[in-house]
């Protein structure tokens, strides 16, 4: 069972919000003594998701939590937007697929960088992405 130990919410509305958000994620990762490589992976994943949220949904809320499962500690990030949603999730998770002008690495690439990845989307209502990176995961 995953228990949440601390909770922070940040509203992301413009690209200036990305850097403070990344710093906050880093703070939490350092606090649970996550190694540098895992930290970098987590922050990169966070950056990709936050960018998606800004680009496709004009922003949304990011929830930063320190979580624990058994003896493992980790950082859980939840990105919630009220954007257009994703019609075909399996297509969006494919490498190289993009409706925008990007490289289409965002979602599948992000999934490779984290320990746990979950995406829920309802067309017209919005998208919620949750990731967990365990300190030693």
């Amino acid at each position, binding site marked *: 069972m995953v228990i949440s130990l601390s909770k922070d919410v940040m509203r992301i509305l413009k690209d200036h919000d990305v850097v403070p958000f990344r710093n906050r994620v880093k703070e939490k990762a350092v606090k649970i003594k996550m190694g540098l490589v895992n930290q970098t992976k987590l922050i990169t994943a966070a950056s990709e998701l936050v960018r998606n949220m800004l680009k496709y949904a004009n922003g949304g809320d990011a929830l930063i939590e320190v979580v624990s499962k058994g003896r493992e500690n980790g950082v859980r990030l939840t990105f919630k937007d009220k954007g257009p949603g994703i019609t075909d999730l399996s297509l969006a998770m494919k490498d190289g697929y993009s409706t925008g002008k990007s490289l289409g690495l965002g979602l599948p690439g*992000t999934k490779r960088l984290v320990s746990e990845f979950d995406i829920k989307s309802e067309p017209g209502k919005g998208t919620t992405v949750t990731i967990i990176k365990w300190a030693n995961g």
Partner: protein
Amino acid sequence: MDRIPILRMGPFLLVTIQVDLYDRLALTLETDLVQMVNKTGAKGVLIDISAVEIVDSFMGRIIGNIASMSKILDAETVVVGMQPAVAITLIELGLPLKGVHTALNVERGMQLLNTMIDLDDDTDDEETDD
């Protein structure tokens, strides 16, 4: 507005990224650099990212763009000083930075640029006006 300084070192341009790049700043750097290449007729661009803690797909694309844009203006781009954790992350993300030359540090980057560019002071390629 914030700007990342571009230093001229002989035939090369040197950019050291010391701050967290947000999107606007990265895009400004891209245009500034390409304009500087054009204005100075630089033969090489050296981008030092040793202080950069993360490179996501957007930043990766900017770096790739700078390299391709400079290339068509006859300048080579070398990215130097990438942190090991950043390299690991980039590959897992699926962004191998194709077409971008890299070197371990500024010194080796300079050496690489020197070998790539035939430097015989023939700066008579001044037909860069449009």
